């Protein structure tokens, strides 16, 4: 439904100083299908918000094409530049952007009131539509309230109602949860997800919070320096990162440098300075190629009985531990390096203790060298 082709946007680009310009979005393409919640995830400055604002029409891209359901909103080649107020998209801003000089009802009614004369609903129909969308976000009892008197979570829902009242084909969400406190954020995460699924909204979501992205999205695009690093379902992005950056940005990883020794039936034997690791992977690597092994700490097991070492079972010494409530983090010295192991709270080994470090196969992913 949403198609982005070769989108590029740079800042500080006057014709005179082409060299000094910064590419905020660097030739990205992706598609969002009907009814899905698609997330752009990345650290600040990666271009995710700029991409969103280009789709909204609030920024003017330099190159590329943006289309929704075949309707071209922007095309550098064809010179199509639909102004943002004619794109009919819904958008929720990070600051909610609730108008403080209007009450709850008027905030939601605004998009209907500014429709072109012919399409503007009559008074009765208008209040019916406003009330319907207010009840969807469960604010109907506050319609007469001044918008500034709402709590953070209520303002958030109001912003959502305002974005939905025109029933837009696509809802743009710009870090909508980042102004809420931790508890409320978790609640709103489920609420948003529920609304999105029940109303069948197609959504483009921007966040720097990996937990939010994994929890809510149907698909995630991890962005970095204006480029998309990896697109996939949350689970596959987490379990099969394709680069060191993705493995590092999403979740926690131990990185171990190694060399491919051989490959038996999709299981790579990798020689590292801590010992040999056997890693299943469907990627192709040459024998003798340098690789990075990313190992998730929650799939690394520690044991105090010291028998049996070999591939994927190493010897180490606990250097430190931290009790985090649900889990206990251990820092284990293995050879020249330190490895983080996340154990359930029943396992808690004081430092210094010699331990066996067992890597489960699902801990591993192989990524190419370089960041």
């Amino acid at each position, binding site marked *: 439904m949403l198609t982005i082709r070769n989108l590029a946007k740079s800042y500080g680009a006057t014709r005179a100083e082409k060299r000094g310009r910064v590419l905020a979005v660097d030739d990205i393409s992706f598609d969002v299908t009907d009814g899905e919640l698609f997330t752009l995830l990345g650290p600040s400055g990666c271009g995710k918000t700029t991409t969103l604002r280009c789709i909204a029409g609030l920024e003017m891209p330099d190159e590329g094409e943006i289309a929704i359901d075949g309707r071209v909103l922007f095309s550098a080649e064809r010179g199509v530049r639909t102004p943002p107020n004619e794109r*009919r998209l819904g958008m929720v801003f990070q600051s909610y*952007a609730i*108008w403080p000089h209007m009450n709850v009802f008027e905030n939601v009614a605004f998009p209907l009131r*500014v429709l072109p004369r012919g399409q503007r609903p009559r008074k009765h129909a208008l209040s019916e539509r406003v009330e319907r969308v207010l009840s969807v976000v469960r604010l109907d009892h506050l319609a007469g309230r001044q918008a500034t008197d709402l709590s953070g979570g209520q303002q958030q829902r109001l912003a959502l109602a305002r974005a939905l009242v025109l029933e837009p084909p696509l809802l743009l969400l710009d870090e909508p949860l980042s102004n809420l406190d931790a508890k409320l954020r978790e609640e709103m995460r489920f609420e948003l997800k529920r609304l999105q699924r029940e109303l069948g909204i197609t959504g483009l979501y921007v966040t720097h919070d990996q937990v939010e992205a994994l929890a809510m999205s149907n698909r995630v695009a991890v962005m970095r320096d204006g480029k998309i690093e990896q697109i996939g379902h949350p689970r596959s992005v987490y379990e099969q990162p394709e680069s060191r950056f993705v493995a590092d940005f999403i979740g926690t990883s131990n990185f171990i440098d190694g060399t491919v020794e051989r490959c038996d039936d999709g299981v790579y034997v990798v020689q590292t300075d801590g010992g040999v690791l056997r890693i299943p992977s469907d990627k192709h690597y040459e024998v003798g190629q340098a690789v990075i092994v990313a190992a998730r700490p929650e799939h690394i097991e520690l044991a105090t009985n010291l028998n049996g070492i070999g591939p994927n079972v190493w010897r180490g010494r606990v250097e430190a531990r931290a009790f985090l409530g649900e889990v206990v983090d251990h820092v284990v010295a293995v050879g020249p390096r330190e490895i983080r192991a996340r154990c359930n709270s029943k396992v808690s080994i004081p430092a210094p203790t010699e331990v066996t470090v067992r890597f489960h196969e699902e801990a591993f992913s192989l990524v190419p060298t370089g960041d």
Partner: protein
Amino acid sequence: MSGRNLIVGLVTVFIAYLALVPLGFLLWQTFTRGGHPTLAAIRTAYSQSGLGTMTLNSFAFAGGATAVAVVIGTGLAHLVVRTDVPFKPLMFAASLVPLIIPGILHTIAWFFLLSTQIGVLNIHVIHPIFGVNFNVASVHGMILVEGLHLTPLVFLLMVASFRSMDPSLEESAIMSGAPLRTVFWRITLPLARPALYAAILIMAVRTLESFEVPAVLGLNQHIFVFTSQIWTTLNASPPDYSTAGAYAMALLVLTTIGVLWHNRISKHGRAYQTVTGKGFRPRPIPLGRWRWPATILILAYFCISVLLPLAILFYASTQNFYAPPSHYTLRHLTWGNYGAAWHDPLVQHGLKNSLILGLGTATAVMLLAAVASWIVVRTKVRGRWLIDNLAFLPLTIPGLVLGVAILTIYLRVPWLPIYGTLWIIFIAYLTRYIPYGMRYVSTSMFQIGRELEESAQMSGAGWFQVFRRIVLPLLVPGFVAGWIYIVVVSVRELGSSVLLYSPGREVLSIAIWEMWRNGQFPELCALGIVMVAGLVVLVGVAYKLGAKIGVREA
């Protein structure tokens, strides 16, 4: 601790003296005669013929000039902050005009541009096109000139307001499908309403207080407003102090209402603040086909507000006798007026006295304000709110009213013989500019963490040492900025000075005023051009300093 209490006490008493005594005396003067309470002065004042017209003129003048300034200033501010109109730096340069062109010079320049007989614009532009002259020496003319002089102030106020607005409030309206026009009228303007009301009130108060425009344009035509009426009453022979006091009281009541109302609004304004995001720097709205009209508007404004007045003053300063520019006059230029002005004893007195008063007032005001604002911001001394309010009070007193009050005090008080000296003008300036000094210092004072002082105390420093070695050095940015600002405004002050000066005690603005009344136009313009140049340098230094210090702070 007793040293501290002594200083606190002295400063409080002094500020109270400055702020309250003139007001008290004004009341006493107006409502008593020979020691008995009476309303005679009010009766005399308000039974004079032409009074209704005077009041109507005052309100028309205030309302009109405010409307002109607010409409133009707000429009330009929105263009500059939110759209991609070119030449934005020009607008900020133009916004310095009220600082660098004193009101009296600005008014005289417009007289040369738009008077019916010798107005250049009338002769070369307006009459050829419309077949009639625009008479600047009328209420309309006064409104136009005062409005133009106040426009930059509105511009700066509204720029600040538009900039502090969360841009996503407007963007979300755009995303809701509203065209730009609708966004401006339904979102931007309502959100800027507190700032807009504040600007309206400030401009109305300023216009009511204004003396330069009514005096230069109105007096000869017998168009009176409150300020020129007060001046005329005091310049009659014999001067009628109590009647002038009665007019001054009325004016004071009006401006006080305005100022208090404004304060109420600015407190309410805070209710309009909502959560703001990380402040994505918004893309300026592309004007499209409106870009050219907007560009012309900006350039036209720059020409009208900066180039035309300065050009006509400069031209006039090169003439032996003032005549509108023609082929003949442009070939007979002279620099003689600059020399003549330099050797004029009036100018020499003015220069000396303005320097003494400017530097003296600025230093005294800033020191006083530093201690006073320290008391208000930092201490828990009981009654410190009183100091705050006392130091704020002179803001409501128009310069001319303050002049009347101070005049009557020191004419009556034999044990403080400062009438006819510079001291009396110094006291007037000190009183007028204390509120400005307070504002500059308090802003910096709030930025100094309390721990910085506390750690100095813990290191063993006494109160005076803490103040001298920690507080004052940290205040330097605000202090210097405020100091320069006060030098600038006191050099241009006319309202109080015009009632308080005596021969040999003239200041520069009085020199211009006297020359205007004597008809020495070319010499006046020469002095004016030099004065503007001096103020440009001073304001330039202030901005450089401010920028430098600002960078270091960040």
